[in-house]
């Protein structure tokens, strides 16, 4: 297979990379673009550390080929913050201590971000919150502090005045 020029938009910026068609989105993000906030923790699409948002939907970036994202908008953890201003879920993670070693945190934040935006203001049940991060493994926190953070944002506690 021949190498291929891929154009995609990551965190609002247009990038052009020259890749082998079998290159994973996770590899493009980390190795080609140097956005190492996105992590990888397994080889079996099981841990969720590599979760990013593609067109606003939560996607495990180790499970899709980069070429499947041709022309699409990708958001990584680096894209949540705007000029030093943290997003609601980032601030809620800080207040609730929703991270420890931090290795799963970028993936958790991206799953949560997609979930919260899909709610469109609807208040989720605790069960729905837990299901929204079912694909993300955290070995440190026991998840409950993450659930509290997502709930706080869903309840509007971090809305800008």
């Amino acid at each position: 297979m021949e190498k291929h020029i891929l154009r995609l938009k990551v965190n609002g910026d247009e990038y052009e990379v020259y890749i082998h068609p079998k290159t994973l989105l996770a590899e493009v993000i980390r190795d080609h673009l140097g956005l190492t906030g996105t992590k990888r923790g397994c080889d079996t699409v099981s841990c969720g550390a590599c979760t990013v948002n593609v067109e606003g939907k939560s996607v495990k970036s180790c499970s899709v080929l980069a070429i499947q994202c041709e022309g699409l908008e990708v958001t990584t953890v680096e894209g949540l913050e705007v000029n030093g201003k943290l997003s609601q879920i980032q601030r809620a993670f800080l207040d609730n201590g929703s991270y420890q070693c931090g290795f799963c945190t970028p993936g958790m934040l991206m799953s949560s971000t997609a979930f919260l935006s899909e709610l469109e203001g609807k208040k989720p049940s605790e069960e729905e919150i837990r299901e929204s991060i079912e694909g993300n493994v955290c070995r440190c926190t026991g998840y409950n502090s993450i659930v509290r953070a997502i709930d706080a944002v869903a309840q509007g506690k971090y809305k800008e005045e």
Partner: protein
Amino acid sequence: MSHAKYSVINTPVHNIDGIAKVTGRATYTFDVTLPGMLHGKILRSPHPHAKIINIDATRAMELSGVKIVVTGKDTLGIKQGIWRRYEELCDEQVLPLEKVRYIGEPVAAVAAITEEIAEAALDLIDVEYEVLPAVYEPLEAIKKEAPTIHEGVERNVNVTRHIEWGDVDEAFEEADYIREDWFKCSGQAHMCMETRAAVSSFTPEGKLTCWASTQSAYYTQGLLAGVLGLREGDVRVLAPYVGGGFGGKFELDAAMFCSAVMSMKLHKPVKVIFTREEDFIASKRRTPMFYYVRTGMKKDGTFCARESRMFSNGGAYTGMGATALYLSGFFHSFPYKWRGYRYDGYRVYTNTLPSTSMRGFGAPQAMFCSEQQIDWMCADLGLDPFEVRRKNGHTEGYEVPGQAFIASCGLEQCINEIEKWVKAKGKMPPNRGIGISSCGFMSGGIFNWFDSPYSFSSAVVTINVDGTVELHVGCQDIGQGSNTTMAIIAAETLGVKMEDIKVHSGDTTHCPADLGAWGSRQTLMAGNAVKMACEDAKKQLLEFAYAEMGINIVYDLDIKDRWVHIVARPERGLDYFELVKKVLRAKDGQRVVGRGYYTPHRKGMISPAYSYMMQAVDAEIDPETGRIKIHEVMTAHDCGQPINPLGLIGQLEGAASMALGYAYLEDMPFEDGKLMNPNLVDYKVIKAPEMPPTGIIEIDTYEPEGPYGAKEAGEGLTNPTAAALGNAVYNALGIQMKELPITPERILKALREKKEQEAQK
């Protein structure tokens, strides 16, 4: 007692690395890239026990992009181990010269210009083995006819440990009831989100820099220097953000060793990252243990004696397993007073993945056996399990004979609180039960098997002219938040604010030596070192302030919230920032430097202080399928003075998820020495939907040996859960679970056996 006098301690603060972690700025060893860096891969043994006859790397070297292949012959062949004070326990060559002893053991390493080429080269290394008979279970390996795993080690017994106090036989004679049980406790993978990772860079000056995912930069430095024949000072270890440890990351691992060996040959940086599968099959595990427990009790519930024998599956090498053998036997007596206690532990080599320390350090296994047997004995005698635990529990001022002195102990209050909580829940519906378990844990180990010539913990604090503070510590933040804890202790002691403190850690060149993150040692040991360093610096500031303020020498001065003042007349004082500027002028421009250190002395054999706790698990079991649903976990916890309340809740919840995983989900089944579930599809960890609500009741105690009264929190909480779940299952269904994990299959089997027994009656 109330400690409201603190301005920073026990107030809610954000972790100091929080912003880095929620924005993706935190870079781990996994993320480190250096100019000209090569990628390394490790070839691993497919055999559980085999002689290495020949390794031929010719074909691999011919592959374009391959820079080097190394085997044991390219190393100094030094047998290493973290118990480096004891030569016989240094039994592991990371790249073995003569034979392999478990499936997954490294035999060769490759460095190439890309990871893909290195991976492809592994298939081109030809290894000729002579397969040897293998043995996988400790009770088999200890038999006379079992194959020898390490030459000269009789019956494959790696280490033994005898603990005894009181007249055990006489104490048993006083018992009205004696019960004996056998238990089988499984292994568990640490399953750190960041797999084993290292980047080594050796330069022609003869200096090595190694970025490593480690729990102790200092141990890694010492071990690397030892196996590479370098001076410790010529090895710099950098531990940036570390993606979890849980007891599995302070030995020398193959990522560190192989990257360093190859970098030394090539004078180029080399990165080695374990795949998740490698992490499962070749990075050690919680020690599987077989326990025989014999306990004698009086009719009124007074404990008389306990005698236990334990055989642990040590796997192929010693690692930290020797410590786990000791601690398991010690904590098996906890948290109770025994007139006579005897423990004989045997750590047995097998041809499986080596076992080592993991959060709880042998105690979760010990408590699973002890705390269930106590409940069964209470049931047999018609006694109240809360009352029996209260009657026999440790109290302040108790001395565990010849072993430990208990200065602070909130066990009784923990039992009272959990009893109230359980009773308030009332009668449980069918197939649902609440189980309890109590335990205690260490606040750092007194052992020095590493033979460190340095203080156990050290800290250096430097105050800049603008009043900002540089705190250099050797303790390692692996996500548990030790950097934040140290910043809180420093801010409290110096009387400044959190934002005035900058913590530097994880760098052996710029930070003082410290044994690192294991055995719940950092809050107490590094915390004491930080407190002492800050008191030293503060004294220098206050000496000047006395002179500057011209006050009567009977007055005490202190600093709080950046205000230097007379303690008795807090309105009289001066601004901290102004004072610092003046002090520097008086010191000929020298910055204020404070030093602190801590090494435990005259604190017994085990630890300077002990935490206590009781936990209750509310579980429901479907008798048709054996499936368990955990409704709630409640813990009453005595960790002395809490330092970081948000961090403490995080530790409790995290410990509960890891310990629940150990109790009913996580298992490491081997077949012919091969791990059957080395991936996150088949290895089940707790995920968000299964995680129950968890509550914590803090018991207020003050530990005189701890900084501001603090002691252990977070590791000990891994200990009670499996036992509490076992007791919940017993209370729900009347079946006794003697094997971990408590799976649906084991529950259904126990239910069938119970039915058969009832039918026979």
